[in-house]
């Protein structure tokens, strides 16, 4: 009688501990570990595992996957076809001496096996070795039915939590992307406003001038005056053309994909000098190109040409008119991973105040040459598309040094 009472107390004690070990965490792994570890330890079982339906993990296979086991070294067979496991109600038990639910697992040999159903969610697999006195049967496992049902409910809770967590995380991610996109759009909007204002102003100024010059031509009787007006007319039209060309370049830079083509870098730089030889002020300026490394590299030729054209063009435009020893030196260091250009001159230099803003759209550091204020903006845009960097060091009256580094694919 006392033994019977003791056994009932033992069973109640173990069931009490087991029932409190379920639902200890919303985390699926911790929930399984808490229940299975307590079950294996308290009932003196050698091995316990939780197999879960593959569909829970978005795996398109008709099988159960081993999600947790104690001990964990039995990992040889980590899946069992659903067809091999009898369909039972939650908490129902199958006991057997051989493994009738899948392949043998490493370390599990002859002994007593049992599977407790978790419905469509999966099942719990238990093993007691031949040397263990515990042999599974309905009598000693039936008391577990209720607590396994409770474990099943807690698993549903963990799975729902995990799904919700994943949805929240996905939503947060989308919100964060949307916020970033919104910020980007706001920035673009501001840029667009500035662009429309500056572009309309810069387009209208030469147009107003052209209109005035046409009026002058219409009213003038002097052939000489008309000829001067026509020259001015040409100059304004050229300015308009240059401006429209720059705007097309900006659009092109942002929309056209980066090309990867083999370029002779020395030829590219000398070609730029050659194209600029008729530029106003390009007289008596010493040009020097130094190359270390290979002449060939792979990059976007058109974009590099725009960059070098702008930088070398500026060096020519802003050379010191009072100096008889003006020079522009281009040093190219072509290495396998990156190419570096150093463009150095002894021109009039840039006031440090302007250096920070010099890459802004429509920013003009000087009125000496009335450009569009877009050249260095285009330069920076193209360098950024090539994933490169540009830095400028300059001193008034001493000259300017521009360093460009472009990574090579």
């Amino acid at each position, binding site marked *: 009688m006392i033994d019977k009472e003791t056994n009932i*107390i*033992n069973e109640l*004690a173990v069931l*009490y*501990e087991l029932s*409190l070990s379920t639902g200890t965490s919303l985390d699926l792994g911790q929930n399984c570990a808490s229940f299975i570890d307590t079950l294996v330890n308290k009932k*003196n079982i050698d091995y316990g595992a939780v197999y879960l339906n593959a569909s829970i993990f978005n795996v398109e296979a008709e099988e159960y996957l081993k999600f947790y086991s104690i*001990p964990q070294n039995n990992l040889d067979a980590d899946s069992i076809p659903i067809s091999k496991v009898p369909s039972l109600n939650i908490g129902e038990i199958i006991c057997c001496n051989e493994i009738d639910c899948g392949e043998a697992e490493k370390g599990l040999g002859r002994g007593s096996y049992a599977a407790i159903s978790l419905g469509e969610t999966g099942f719990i697999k238990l093993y007691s070795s031949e*040397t263990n*006195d515990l042999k599974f049967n309905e009598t000693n496992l039936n008391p577990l039915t209720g607590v396994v049902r409770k474990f099943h409910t807690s698993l549903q809770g963990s799975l729902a939590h995990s799904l919700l967590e994943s949805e929240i995380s996905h939503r947060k991610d989308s919100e964060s992307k949307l916020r970033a996109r919104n910020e980007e759009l706001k920035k673009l909007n501001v840029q667009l406003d500035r662009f429309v204002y500056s572009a309309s102003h810069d387009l209208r100024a030469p147009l107003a001038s052209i209109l005035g010059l046409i009026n002058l031509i219409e009213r003038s009787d002097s052939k000489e005056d008309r000829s001067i007006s026509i020259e001015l007319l040409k100059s304004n039209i050229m300015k308009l053309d240059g401006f429209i060309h720059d705007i097309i370049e900006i659009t092109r830079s942002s929309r056209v994909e980066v090309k990867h083509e083999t370029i002779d870098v020395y030829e590219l730089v000398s070609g730029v000098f050659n194209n600029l030889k008729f530029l106003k002020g390009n007289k008596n300026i010493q040009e020097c190109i130094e190359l270390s490394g290979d002449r060939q590299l792979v990059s976007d030729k058109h974009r590099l040409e725009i960059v070098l054209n702008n930088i070398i063009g500026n060096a020519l435009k802003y050379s010191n008119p009072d100096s008889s020893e003006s020079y522009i030196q281009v040093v190219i260091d072509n290495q396998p991973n990156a190419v570096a250009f150093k463009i150095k001159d002894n021109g009039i230099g840039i006031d440090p105040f302007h250096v920070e803003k010099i890459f802004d759209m429509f920013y003009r550091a000087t009125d000496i040459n009335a450009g569009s204020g877009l050249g260095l903006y285009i330069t920076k845009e193209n360098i950024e598309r090539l994933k490169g960097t540009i830095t400028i060091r300059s001193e008034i009256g001493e000259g300017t040094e521009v360093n460009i580094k472009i990574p090579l694919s």
Partner: protein
Amino acid sequence: MLSEIHNIDALVNNFLSNKKGESSILLLLLAEKSAIDFEALKIQLNAMDILFFGGIFPCVYGSSKVSENGVVHQWVEGSRPTIIENISGQRFSLDIKQFSSNAIVFIDGLTSGIDRFLSKFYNSFGTDLKMVGGGAGSISLESMPCIFDNTGLYADAAVVFLLKDGLEVGIRHGWKRAAGPFVATKTDKNVIQELNWRPALETYKEAISINYQTSFDGASFFDTAKKFPFAMVKEGAEDIVRDPITVDEAGHIVCVGTIPENSVLNIMTAEKKQLVYAAYEAASASIMHNKVAQHQFSLIIDCISRKLFLEDDFFEELKMIDKAFEAFGIEEDFIGAMTLGEIGAVGSGFPQFFNKTVVVGGIYD
């Protein structure tokens, strides 16, 4: 073999006197009050290329004698010993090549996380694991470096030695349920704060007073508590005893070994003869009946608090172990240590950290 000399050269000569093979490794059980200079011993053994491992314990047993200041040695065959540090930390590495599933393990008995360490061990080694060992440390219950191998002396650590030979393990304690069950409704590792949703100490004292008319007044907590340990329910095996050793500043009961929250506990008691007989049963269970002729030696891990409880009768316990071996014709001397917690795994199920228990490991060729 027990040595109670402190001269390093003489001691090492004693060790070498019964060395078996070239690849033998030296198992050392060092008593807490031994005057041996560990550093000097380490240097000497390293200079001689002798691999060794072991622990420092309140008492050791060898050559039919319990010693508080000697050292017991035994040559064993197996893998190179591995020290695992930072047992109380969440992330210690159990990087052990699985040479065999038979292990001797000594661990700092006062560190926390022993259960997690054993669980990790079971996860790595699987269901065949057999293990004998115990908690090292001082009887003063003050933490100190107590685990060693050729690399030095460590606290909050374990040393693992995998045997080349066979191992059979017997585990018994002999304590019987006296009062309960109680639910440990609030615990923190090895500290019981609440029993049955009430202050643990109050509930514990009340249960002992009602059932045994025993009061805690006028004696230290341990003097009374050593007769009434707790035990956690486990089906198909003896309950797992937890030794209440002291009361902390907050009035909570401090035990040796973890008590998981919501564990169902009973208060235990025992007559001395039951405990003594349990030792006989543990020794008998460690005997491989078909391999008696291949028996090399037996390692007895006996809880120091059993010795404190049994007092003079403790020698009866050792005699009963001897009798168990004699009954099967085993005459070899056995060695052992009185520990702060015992470790055992019999080849099926979880390895456990016990209290007030005898674990006997029989080692066979």
